[in-house]
């Protein structure tokens, strides 16, 4: 009897994944998860939520896991698949943990940004993250109130979290690799005596530069933070 293949046929993946406009192969999907992971690691602010990528990766992992359950014996093959699953799972958890860390660190600003974004703009929080952020904020407020604020004189019982919690520092430096050639990227020096100048970013080159000017390039995928 022909042994059933214990892994999904890559070509048959197309119709999964719901809202993806682009049809990605599983390999491309994993690649874009890794890119999102690296960008999120090195960016000083919370980046756009890549919920579709996360969802598709989870689907792939579940699909593979259920295939593996069906196969009996064949230790080596199963072992290799499991190793790959663990590796992908690590990237996924690290990505989500990184985002949660930033949400906890910048929660009032993150919520403010989400509240004030225009309808067409992409969301920076997934629905679950949004619920988490709101709950975190409510918990912090009630904690501060019950531990300190209610013991203060009545006219000093307010805390403006937007002011109290530090903003992400968009002027921090980041390392990046250029994926798509860019022309005339502005470099703003901080000392007033130096004037701004523009540089061209060659494909494949690596740079150290302030995050603020290249933030849109990270969002569009033209550069990769390293």
């Amino acid at each position, binding site marked *: 009897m022909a042994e059933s293949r214990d892994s999904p046929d890559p070509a048959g993946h197309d119709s999964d994944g719901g809202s993806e406009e682009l049809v990605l192969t599983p390999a491309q999907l994993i690649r874009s998860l890794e890119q999102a992971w690296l960008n999120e690691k090195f960016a000083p602010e919370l980046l756009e939520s890549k919920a579709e990528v996360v969802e598709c990766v989870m689907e792939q992992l579940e699909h593979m896991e259920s295939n593996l359950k069906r196969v009996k014996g064949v230790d080596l093959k199963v072992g290799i698949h499991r190793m790959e699953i663990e590796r992908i799972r690590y990237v996924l958890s690290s990505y989500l943990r990184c985002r949660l860390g930033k949400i906890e660190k910048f929660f009032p600003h993150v919520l403010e940004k989400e509240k004030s974004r225009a309808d067409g703009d992409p969301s920076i929080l997934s629905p679950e993250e949004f619920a988490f952020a709101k709950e975190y904020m409510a918990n912090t407020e009630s904690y501060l109130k019950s531990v*300190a604020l209610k013991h203060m004189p009545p006219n000093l019982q307010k805390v403006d979290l937007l002011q109290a919690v530090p903003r992400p520092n968009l002027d921090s430096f980041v*390392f990046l690799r250029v994926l798509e050639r860019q022309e005339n990227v502005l470099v703003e020096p*901080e000392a007033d005596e130096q004037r701004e100048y523009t540089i061209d970013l060659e494909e494949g080159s690596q740079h150290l530069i302030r995050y603020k000017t290249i933030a849109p390039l990270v969002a569009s995928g033209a550069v990769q933070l390293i």
Partner: protein
Amino acid sequence: MGGAPWAVPVPVPIPPAAPGMDPAEAEFLAEKELVTIVPNFSLDRIYLIGGDLGPFNPGLPMEVPLWLAINLKQRQKCRLIPPEWMDVEKLEAIRDQERKEDTFTPMPSPYYMELTKLLLNYASDNIPRADEIRTLVKDTWDTRIAKLRLSADSFVRQQEAHAKLDNLTLMEINTTGTFLTQALDHMYKLRTSLQPGESAQSQDF
């Protein structure tokens, strides 16, 4: 007297993931590189999520990602073939050029350090003159890191806003990167807080 809000430092919990990248994560990325192995078992084609591998035939060289190669080697299921740049003469030439030039020489692999460490750790029996190779790669690394330290120093001193670092590998960037970017951040905060009329926007630390 108005109800001015308190500027209470909100307790910052320990972030679940450390910022920047640690060497283990750089190694994790390097483990995706393809290396040549000669398996001693047979297995038909496997369809991983990241791509297809195999089929595995005993005695026939084939390429697999490093993470799998190391695992198979540890289980004594294959022999590793060192990459063609992992050769004493070639590495000597690279080391000499690195010492001669002020700029960074392009390295034969963007993950030369991780590949050397992993292959020499787990498969030194498959690599001729392993000790010499280890020393040569370490010498080259030391030279490059010293150069990197010098250019990072002048970058900070001259308050540069941009640097091009084409021939640096990820491991080198990560070794100095987090320290350098945090140092630059601190310098920036110190400098901008000297400007008068700065509104009460608190930046932490």
